[in-house]
């Protein structure tokens, strides 16, 4: 009896491993294919002979070289780095202040505003980009990367505020009363008590802001037309295509480099991000 349960358990385990292996192939094949193509020579990419899953005719860095010397890739990279950094800082400052205010200062209608924050996250960019196009035009910021400093935070601030409220609300009120009695002001309280407690939330919020801004596509696509101002995502998929010809090697090299920063960020901070996200979403 005991033995049969044991063998059954083992059979279940083998099946589970098998299913997980299939899922792993599904998850990992596209990034693998992207990386592999970027190191293949053009002849090998366009050859129908041989096994495509491996590099058989020698790896090459030519696509990367071309990317840096023959295209505006470095300009896109610089623009994206600048915009992402500024948008992340700006959004985090706004969100921390809003979350502190909403969770603590007894502001009238905090509950209503909290729901409002949540609701505005649900107004997607695809509903807003046409009116934004007009507003950005009025401000004279069409075809300028700085326009993105105004529009990206709209997609970030509500969600980050929502994550942070969850953390701030978990701090017992007796703690801040005690701090206030001890003569601390609100700024000191925010810096010394709230922010240290909310570190996982801050990391999650920062990563969220970084990801949204780094991967932003629709707004730069709609508002920016010139190469000097363009961001990485749009630049890689639109301007690296010459006419109807796809240089898949170069495109995949560009895509791989463009997705490295977020991938590295998550590689180091994944656990923070998951705990931040899930404690936010389970608190709702």
């Amino acid at each position, binding site marked *: 009896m005991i033995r049969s349960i044991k063998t059954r358990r083992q059979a279940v385990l083998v099946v*589970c491993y098998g*299913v*997980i292996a299939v899922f792993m192939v599904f*998850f990992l094949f*596209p*990034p693998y*294919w*992207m990386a592999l193509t970027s190191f293949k020579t053009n002849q090998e990419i366009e050859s*129908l002979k041989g096994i*495509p899953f491996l590099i058989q005719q020698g790896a090459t860095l030519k696509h990367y070289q071309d990317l840096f010397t023959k295209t505006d890739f470095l300009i896109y990279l610089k623009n994206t780095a600048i915009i992402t950094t500024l948008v992340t800082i700006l959004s985090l400052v706004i*969100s921390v*202040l*809003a979350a*502190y*205010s909403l969770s603590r*200062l*007894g*502001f009238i209608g905090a509950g209503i505003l909290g*729901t*409002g924050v949540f*609701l*505005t996250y649900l*107004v*997607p*960019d*695809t*509903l807003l*980009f*046409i*009116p934004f*196009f*007009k*507003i950005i035009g009025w401000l004279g910021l069409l075809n300028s990367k700085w326009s993105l400093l105004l*529009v990206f935070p*709209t997609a970030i*601030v509500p969600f980050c*505020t929502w994550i942070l409220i969850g953390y701030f609300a978990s701090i*017992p009120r007796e703690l801040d009363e005690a701090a*206030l*009695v001890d003569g601390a002001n609100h700024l000191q309280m925010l810096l010394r008590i709230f922010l240290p407690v909310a570190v996982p939330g801050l990391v999650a919020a920062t990563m969220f802001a970084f990801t949204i801004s*780094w*991967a932003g*596509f629709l707004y730069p*696509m709609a508002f920016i037309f010139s190469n000097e101002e363009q961001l990485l*995502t*749009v630049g*890689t*998929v639109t301007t690296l295509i010459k006419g109807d010809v*796809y240089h*898949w090697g170069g*495109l*995949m090299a560009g*895509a791989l480099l*463009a*997705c490295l920063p977020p991938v590295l960020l998550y590689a180091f901070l*994944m656990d923070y991000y998951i705990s931040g*996200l*899930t404690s936010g979403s*389970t608190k*709702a």
Partner: protein
Amino acid sequence: MEVALPRPRAAREPFLTRSLDNERLLAAILLAPAVLILAVFIAYPFVMGVWLSLSSTSVGNPGEFVGLKNFLKAWDDSIFRTAFGNTFFYTFWATVFKLSLGMWVALLLNRHFRGKRLVRAAMLLPFIIPTVLSTFAWRWMFDPTFSVLNWTLYKAGLIATKLPFLSDSTWAMWCAISINTWRGMPFFAITLLAGLQTINPDLHEAASLDGANAWRRFWHVTWPLLKPVTLVVVVFSVIQTFSDFQLIYVLTGGGPANSTHLVATYAYQIGVGAGLLGEGAAISLFMLPVLFFVVWMQLRYLRRLEGA
């Protein structure tokens, strides 16, 4: 969860009354940037979008009030109707796959086994890589001449001729749904896994001692406890899938022959591509009733939970 601690009242009163007005002002100041950004960059554009949709505005032409003409025109437009139908089809199937496969993966990962961290890290890759870039890799995998998928299926003897991945409208739609599933499933799995880990294992043990099989344990123990988290994830996902733009824009551009457009990509083509801002705004507003309904349902459900 406030516990009033006994404190000397006399020492507290003046401080509280003194700081109350002060606090209101401070709260307002701290909240101002967020409110400003929400009001100026969400509420105002939204109202303006509604106004634009009622006007004949185009790029370089201020336009005039035309009533519901843009909406009626869109409704009579066969491409718009296809796009509208596609949006529901795409959202429905992508969500079904993301939820069922995501749940499956979460249940698999909820056991202890070697290499679990590695699997979890690999799983997050689709979620981390910016959609535009991964969609481009998929597009290369679906290439009409050099598709690695066609090569594999052909060599495995499963097909005799190439599959028309992106050149046939039905195939192209299912390709888009697959990519969306690939991209969105990890978020489902991770969130559901976090939900699963809050469930007390004793409950399962008790149920299996009572003779419940795996399916009954899932249905009667796991699912009721997992429902609130699932609902939040599904709503987020439905909203993002319903308003999706990037994936279709990069994969097919709405083609072949405008057959895979979603509301958002068609609104972009009309609004920014052709410069007809009024008509584009009207098309994108067709998404609003659906999004509103989804959010309203969720809020109602969450209130019921809070009340309980």
